[in-house]
């Protein structure tokens, strides 16, 4: 048995880098230090896995060779007028780079899963700027941590033990050195460990953020409560904010997916900007997938835009609402899709799923997903961070390298190789045409 140390975790945006994985005869037999979610991923990565390339036939699927499956995926893209190339948050930056080249080649739209999660935050950053820092700053310096619309106890399980409440930092070494605040529509395990919990009415985040901006500026309220939160509590939080030495606001989908969306994030950024006139304050999104940040970064440096990048005019365009995946699918504007390391059939509104089900779809994914049930061709792939290595970006934008420690099943190539193959085939098809 081999114990592989300092393994990077390819589950959530925390990208913990201290895992120990036991491997025996190319089989993962144990995982140490990982959270419950990552443990499930590592231990099940080799089980219940269908490693066969599949093609739709007679209302079901038939097994095909890998070459035939790659040919089919290339044909779907080459024959489409306006294809969507979607996913990208659970793969390597190297694969994303090839995906962008492929999108440009076929004149389609490249969108990543941020489009339905933290994309609105990226829109707000373009409007207002980004007062941000690394998780290391939170760990070593922050004496006030705010979790707004996120629940790390369920989704980013080691966030509090590695970066905030319960970690040993240089200047903050214990729980009592930090104040923890939670703002959420419901009580959570995270809120139970907080020093202050503000239970907010659903969809009223913008109002509460605006009220906090007033309180931070010592303005008077002419009401008893805002967004369901009593004014005394708003003033208490404002006082904690202005009197802290170093504050850090972490926000989740509770802020990005509720009614005001990008305006919520713009209001939060404005609040943090106001606070920097009085103390030191930064903010970070709680990114979900382990390389969704990388999907945004690679798209940004290659095309100028972080997601929803449309190449149909021959140059990159970005106009969320028009060029974003959910809107394109709901309106039935795209005529084919390549889905890489993602499952839009599970995570898009039904109106989008119905239209996705009725266009040619190629799926590249290590596992069978809801989207693979809708696909015309399914190409199996290897797991990044388990069966091949690549570059990923942690939620704070720190680039890290994952490693390979077991061999993938036959037919399961790294995404980057699958995509290079498809790109090569698309170019050949276009030359013939």
């Amino acid at each position, binding site marked *: 048995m081999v114990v592989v140390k300092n393994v990077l975790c390819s589950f959530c945006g925390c990208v913990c880098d201290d895992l120990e994985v036991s491997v025996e005869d190319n089989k993962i037999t144990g995982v140490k230090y990982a959270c419950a979610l990552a443990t499930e991923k590592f231990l099940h990565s080799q089980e219940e896995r269908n490693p066969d390339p599949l093609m739709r036939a007679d*209302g*079901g699927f038939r097994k095909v060779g890998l070459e035939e499956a790659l040919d089919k995926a290339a044909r779907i893209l080459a024959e489409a007028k306006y294809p969507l190339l979607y996913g990208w948050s659970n793969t390597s930056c190297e694969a994303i780079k090839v995906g962008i080249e492929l999108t440009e080649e076929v004149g389609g739209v490249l969108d990543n899963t941020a489009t339905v999660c933290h994309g609105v935050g990226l829109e707000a950053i373009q409007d207002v700027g980004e007062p941000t820092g690394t998780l290391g700053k939170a760990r070593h310096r922050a004496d006030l941590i705010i979790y707004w619309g996120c629940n790390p106890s369920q989704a980013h399980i080691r966030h509090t033990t590695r970066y905030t409440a319960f970690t040993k930092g240089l200047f903050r070494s214990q729980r009592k050195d930090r104040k923890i605040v939670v703002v959420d529509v419901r009580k959570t395990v995270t809120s139970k460990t907080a020093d202050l919990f503000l239970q907010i009415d*659903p969809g009223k985040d913008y109002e509460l953020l605006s009220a906090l901006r007033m309180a931070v500026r010592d303005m008077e309220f002419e009401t008893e409560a805002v967004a369901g939160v009593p004014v005394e509590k708003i003033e208490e939080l404002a006082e904690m904010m202005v009197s802290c030495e170093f504050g850090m606001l972490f926000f989740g989908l509770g802020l990005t997916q509720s009614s005001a969306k990008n305006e919520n994030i713009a209001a939060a950024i404005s609040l943090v900007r106001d606070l920097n006139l009085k103390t030191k304050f930064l903010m970070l999104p709680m990114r*979900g997938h382990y390389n969704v940040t990388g999907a945004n970064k690679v798209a940004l440096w290659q095309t100028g835009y972080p997601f929803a990048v449309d190449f149909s005019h021959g140059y990159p365009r970005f106009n*969320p609402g028009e060029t974003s995946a959910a809107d394109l699918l709901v309106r039935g504007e795209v005529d084919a899709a390549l889905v890489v390391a993602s499952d839009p059939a*599970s*995570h898009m*509104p039904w109106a989008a*799923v119905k239209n996705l089900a009725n266009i040619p779809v190629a799926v590249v994914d290590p596992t069978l997903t*809801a989207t693979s049930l809708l696909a015309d061709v399914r190409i199996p792939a290897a797991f990044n961070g388990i069966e091949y290595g690549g570059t990923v970006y942690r939620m704070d934008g720190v680039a890290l390298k994952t490693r390979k420690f077991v061999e993938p099943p036959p037919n399961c190539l790294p995404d980057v190789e699958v995509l290079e193959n498809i790109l090569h085939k698309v170019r050949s098809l276009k030359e013939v045409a």
Partner: protein
Amino acid sequence: MKAVLITGTSIAQAQGKEHGKLSAKYKDSVAVCEMDESDMAALKIEPGQTVKVTSPYGSITVKAAKSREPRPGLVFIPVGPWANRLVGPETGGTGTPSYKGLEVEVEPAPGEKVPDLEELMAEARGGNEKW
């Protein structure tokens, strides 16, 4: 009963998806509607019984579960194909649909079946699938 629906991730949902999207574990972890105890009492339903949740955009049958923390009037369905039957198509020009804060109607649905993932995807394709 009128309620506000929040969709989101949970430990069980995340573990279920890593176990396999086609697994029973995944379905059991996401085809559920977590509700306040008092709301369940008002609807005369027990955990594990089926409820029909309806939004302006669609409806879905899932199993009722007691929420871990009290919050009458608020219901939670983990992200997934079941919750997304209720999510509307509008993104307000942002690209992101409103997955949180949906107004829904929750009613008991005794005897109704919670659809499998395969059934939902077959319906999306217009039926006649054999997987």
